């Protein structure tokens, strides 16, 4: 009898162990658990996203899709952005996963591509050939070069400014670096924080962004990036070090104790008129205006700092992400219909107007004049934010090492030269130039 007990327990364990061997790629076919069997021929697609704040907008956008595709119903399921990557990676391989999913760009996309969890879209979504090549790069497999998603948005980097504060202090958007510094000095003397920059615990991902905004021209923009990729130059290049030093030089114009300042703090400083300039991405415009709709915001590109190899202002940018199809979706054809529609100007226009973002669909112009200006600047003077675009394909990520080191520098624990050396040392762990 006692043997019976033990044998039974071992049996249950063995079944459990055998039933869930992972990774082989055969862990259960994607069942119809999302309710596709109900309602006759009507198919329900599950669309996953990390944009919790967009539920209402997507309801409107997707309603338009359903008008032209009456046999498809799309359910928008957003997840908390910070945990999305793991939810998606597991969800794509299990039951009741997404049919179409919002995908991270560049390095963040690769784990899904390499695990074979996505459908390549080359030749299936014709409209992709019309997309900007720079933006498509973010939706490609790094090794196989195939396209795995329809890019939905891109972000541009520039300085937002408070028009009223500029007017009150007799300042105009600066045409030269020196003018910008003079303006910052004037604002500081008037008791206004010149630049709303955060370097606190949650702000480490924005520090490389601030560096791009002020330093892209100084390190040599696209040319330097190409030299990095070919191996002709390294991050230890004096130009890159000088671009890092700009942040140290600008520190007096940042909020006091910048290393303790968090992103919501600087958003609040800017939205309430206690800070005049906010170096940030196009993504920040909607939240700032939501907090203070009466705020009059302008934007300018930072004039090239002295000594820059590039003499015109630059607008750095990157592709935000894309929509791809789950390789295990039970409704491949319908899912493909949806992503095809996401490559049309109809979707692009809806996306831009409902979400106040820059659509990646070619030919879509933002209705918001300020976003339109950012888009125009990017079209004319766009440059890749290289640490994110090119140096996230291995660990440690280039921007991850960089942000830690810049924070250290602002905390007074290291200097620009060591920052550059650390970044070089970090990416050398996996990056091989010349590919």
């Amino acid at each position, binding site marked *: 009898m006692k043997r019976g007990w033990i044998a039974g327990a071992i049996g249950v364990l063995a079944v459990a162990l055998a039933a869930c061997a992972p990774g082989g790629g055969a862990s259960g076919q994607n069942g119809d658990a999302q309710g596709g069997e109900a309602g006759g021929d009507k198919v329900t697609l599950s669309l996953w996203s990390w944009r919790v704040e967009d539920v209402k907008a997507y309801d409107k956008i997707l309603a338009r899709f359903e008008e032209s595709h009456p046999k498809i119903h799309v359910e928008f399921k957003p997840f908390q952005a910070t945990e999305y990557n793991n*939810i998606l990676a597991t969800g794509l391989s299990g039951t*009741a996963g997404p049919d179409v999913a919002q995908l991270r760009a560049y390095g963040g996309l690769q784990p899904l591509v390499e695990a074979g969890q996505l459908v390549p879209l080359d030749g299936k979504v014709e409209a992709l050939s019309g997309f900007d090549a720079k933006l498509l790069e973010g939706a490609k497999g790094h090794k196989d070069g195939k396209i795995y998603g329809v890019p939905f948005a891109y972000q541009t980097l520039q300085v937002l400014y408070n028009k009223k504060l500029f007017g009150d202090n007799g300042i105009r958007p600066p045409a030269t670096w020196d003018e910008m510094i003079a303006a910052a000095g004037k604002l500081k003397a008037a008791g206004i924080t010149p630049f709303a920059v955060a370097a606190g615990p949650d702000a480490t991902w924005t520090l490389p962004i601030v560096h791009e905004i002020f330093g892209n021209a100084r390190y040599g923009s696209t040319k330097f990036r190409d030299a990095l990729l070919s191996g002709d130059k390294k991050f230890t290049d004096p130009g890159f070090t000088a671009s890092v030093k700009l942040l140290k030089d600008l520190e007096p114009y940042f909020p006091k104790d910048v290393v303790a300042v968090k992103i919501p703090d600087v958003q609040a400083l800017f939205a*309430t008129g206690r800070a005049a300039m906010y170096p940030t991405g196009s993504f920040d415009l909607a939240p700032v205006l939501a907090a203070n709709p009466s705020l009059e915001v302008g934007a300018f590109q930072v004039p090239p700092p002295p000594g820059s190899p590039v003499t015109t202002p630059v607008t750095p940018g990157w592709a935000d992400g894309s929509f791809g199809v789950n390789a295990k979706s039970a409704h491949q054809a319908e899912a493909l219909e949806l992503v095809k529609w996401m490559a049309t100007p109809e979707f692009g226009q809806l996306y831009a107007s409902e979400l106040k973002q820059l659509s990646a669909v070619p030919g879509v112009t933002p209705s918001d004049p300020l976003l339109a200006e950012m888009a125009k600047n990017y079209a004319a003077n766009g440059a890749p934010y290289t640490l994110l675009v090119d140096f996230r394909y291995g660990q440690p990520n280039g921007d991850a090492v960089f942000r830690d080191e810049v924070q250290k520098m602002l905390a007074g624990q290291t200097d620009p030269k060591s920052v550059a050396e650390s970044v070089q040392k970090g990416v050398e762990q996996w990056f091989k130039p010349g590919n």
Partner: protein
Amino acid sequence: MTARRRAPGRVAVHLLLWGYGVVALLPLVVMVLNSLRPTSEIFTTPLGLPASPTLNSYARVWTEASFSSYLTNSLVVTCGAVLLGTAVSALAAYPLARYDFAGSRVLGAYFLAGLMLPIRLGLVPIFYLMDSMGLIDSLLGLTLLYAASGVPFCVFVLSAFYRSLPGELDEAARIDGAGEFRIFGQIMLPLVRPALASVMLFQFVPLWHEFLYPLVLLRSDEKFTIPRGLSQFFGEYTTDWSALFAGLVLATAPLFVLFVLATKQIIAELTAGMSK
């Protein structure tokens, strides 16, 4: 006991305890205050008194986010997990603490091992396990996982309590011819009741807050637990602070009630035990 300390010392003790009491209650106060302010106000001044207190955020959380169904789910999952986990652990800890049998020490270490790592480390294997058992989007799956996660802690603490009980108790009962299950159920279990209450309390709180596994394992809105439901207010660039604070207040209130009830039980049992 006779009174020992006199005036100045006594005053210092009162000051210390009540002063610290105020500091300890600060977070609840901040949470409640911020839940009464609209998000735009929190955005511009993250901390402060409500300019014009409003209960709007509570209404929004209750209706828009179907908080009542999250609350029910959370109660079902957490209570189920805590009861199941404590029940099996109370059984298992007893022989581990009071019998000598081959492998008892190894078994004790085996149970202890699970305490060393948070379950967040097993995310990917747990997902596959649940998927293979058909427990994705299932409250039962979440309950079983949570119940199992409490076992190491319960076994560890309850063993310590069983060990501290006098040995004569069960020996006397055994001489009287009582069976092992009767000794356990009628003598041992009642004696560790205060420990059971505290063990349940300390399991309950972290499970009540746990948000990673509901995010990964649950799919449909009607099955969400409170933390999974509240995560819908965390945007990529914007957070609905007002609703979030209201949700947190609503989520913490049941814990507070539970806590007051549990300590009452713990203290009452202890005092009863002492007067014997």
